[in-house]
């Protein structure tokens, strides 16, 4: 464990990217929220469904919900191989968990991790035991319900050797909790010959600050996919998940985002290709509708025979914002194959007019192209997510 003094000092440490947020401005969120048995009859249903979390829990292996800083619902239909509970309960139950606790993530990374560490943040613990394949996705929902509050979480996901899991995690703010801050530390461990697909859909308020901190350690011959979607207005959001890959493993990041007027979004991620023959692909499609946008990608080749590709594409639909693509490739051995592509611009006029010549009006034509552009970022999107995603794009008011 790091020494507390170092972590306390880190409370002053700004994040590497993104505008600085004064975390003292927010009060703590409650750690004893309402307990919800039936999600379908809860007031929060519409917030959940906006971010891909289905209230009837059909075709889901389990659902875990946090409101502010406490767990409010945890239910699983899978009896064997899947463990779901709060991180605090898991720490009490499993002595070995301390070997995973703050091991992928350094709490002194910045003020947000330090805050989560020092305030002893709770979160979700999800584990798939060795050899088990959880068929339907597990869904989690993180909702901020208290205005002017900070939600801090510490999640741990463990997919053991030979196991597989698909997760859908939706994060949202209630309407009345617009001016709030979300800090979610997620430590992810994928063993050998294992698979994890982790899809995150966010829908925040116009003033909400969002600083997720995600680190993933992947063993040998495994696959880790990280999908990230944000289509609605947000205040300031900055996220830069890091994955460390073992031999012959692969990581795929797909990011899809829209930055509306007044939003400041800085996304992307980093993959350290540490094992021989490991592979990575970072794909991002983003749209500025008058907001600020930064798409980052960093690939680091540390072993021979690694192969990696990075692609950042942005469309500017409305003036007033800005777009920055920052693709970075770094190699420490000779035998690597790493490439990148970046493109920033507006939608080609001839494409819009081609669709208009078929009778679509300009707004319909633009939203059709934009929808196609965005969905092109996600390779092998879990089918469970496609519908939610289509709806979210529909609601994102592209043509206004």
């Amino acid at each position: 464990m790091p020494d507390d003094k170092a972590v306390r000092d880190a409370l002053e440490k700004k994040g590497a990217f993104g505008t600085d947020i004064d975390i003292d401005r927010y009060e703590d969120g409650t750690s004893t929220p309402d307990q919800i048995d039936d999600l379908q009859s809860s007031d929060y249903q519409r917030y959940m469904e906006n971010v891909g979390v289905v209230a009837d829990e059909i075709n889901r292996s389990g659902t875990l919900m946090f409101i502010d800083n406490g767990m409010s619902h945890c239910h699983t239909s899978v009896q064997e191989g899947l463990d779901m509970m709060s991180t605090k309960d898991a720490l009490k139950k499993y002595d070995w968990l301390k070997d995973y606790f703050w091991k992928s993530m350094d709490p002194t990374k910045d003020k947000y991790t330090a805050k989560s560490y020092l305030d002893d943040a709770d979160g979700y613990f999800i584990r798939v035991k060795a050899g088990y394949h959880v068929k339907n996705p597990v869904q989690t929902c993180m909702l901020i319900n208290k205005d002017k509050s900070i939600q801090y979480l510490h999640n741990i996901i463990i997919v053991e050797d030979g196991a597989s899991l698909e997760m859908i995690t939706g994060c949202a703010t209630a309407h009345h909790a617009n001016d709030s801050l979300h800090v979610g530390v997620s430590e992810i461990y994928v063993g050998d010959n294992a698979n994890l697909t982790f899809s995150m859909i966010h829908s925040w308020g116009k003033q909400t600050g969002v600083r997720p901190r995600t680190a993933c350690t992947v063993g040998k011959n495994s696959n880790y996919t990280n999908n990230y979607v944000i289509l609605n207005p947000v205040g300031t959001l900055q996220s830069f998940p890091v994955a460390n890959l073992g031999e012959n493993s692969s990581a795929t990041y797909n990011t899809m985002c829209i930055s509306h007027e007044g939003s400041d979004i800085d996304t992307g991620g980093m993959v350290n290709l540490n094992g021989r023959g490991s592979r990575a692909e970072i794909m991002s499609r983003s749209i500025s509708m008058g907001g600020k946008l930064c798409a980052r990608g960093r690939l680091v080749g540390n072993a021979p025979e690694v192969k990696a590709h990075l692609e950042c594409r942005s469309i500017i639909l409305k003036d007033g914002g800005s777009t920055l693509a920052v693709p970075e490739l770094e190699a420490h051995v000779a035998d690597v194959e790493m490439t990148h592509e970046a493109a920033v611009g507006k939608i080609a006029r001839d494409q819009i007019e081609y669709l208009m010549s078929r009778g679509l009006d300009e707004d319909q034509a633009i939203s059709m192209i934009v929808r196609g552009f965005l969905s092109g970022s996600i390779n092998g999107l879990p089918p469970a997510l496609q519908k939610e995603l289509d709806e979210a794009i529909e609601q994102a008011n592209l043509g206004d």
Partner: protein
Amino acid sequence: MTDMLKIIDLHAEAGEREILKGVNLTVKEGETAVLFGPNGSGKSTLMSTIMGYSTCKVTQGQILFKGEDITDLTVDQRAKKGIGMMMQRPPNIFGVKLGDLIKTASPIGEEVLKEADRFKMGNFLDREVNVGFSGGEIKRSELLQLTAQKPEFILLDEPESGVDLENIDLIGNKVHDLLYDGISCRGSVQRHVSSLVITHTGQILDYIGADCAYVMKNGRICCSGRPTDLLKEIKENGYGECGSCQTIKL
């Protein structure tokens, strides 16, 4: 017969250069007009200008459609009035599936998609529009889209170019169906749809029976006449004499 399309002294620029230099041309209701002309003479530019593409900027003149001035209308307004176009080189529309476009754009899209196999397009409905399509596939895709669109006036830009012999029949017959509003009897003389057709080879004429032809040179219509006569003349002597001979007049 009333005028379907009437173009009066049309001047238009593309890429800051004047390409159309005073075009006058009329297509009457139910008529099929052919447009000949050497490469680079401005034929495609004329069609794009009629459709309203913003790459072509009208600097002078008028485009009348069924008597109404459409010179300043947007592309979709023109489409809704009944103008449709088969482009020579349509753009790739990444991420948009052909089937979805047809369903979205046309109220009869769903029904037309059931006929996709007749256009040999059944396997293309989940493909991105025009992306990686071969020459013939582009034409068949355009025809399928136009069939769903049901325009009253159709601009066909070299419908047979890049199409192999095997597919030329299919394309010719589909163009025929479009112009004769689905009446597949080749003996039918009752044409409902008017069109302007660009062709180099004249092959398409075997399928559609054109009424009149124009020759375009250097941004102007320099000659008009009977399609078969003009085609024969051009095939024998090229475009060199066009505009000066004044012998073949309708």
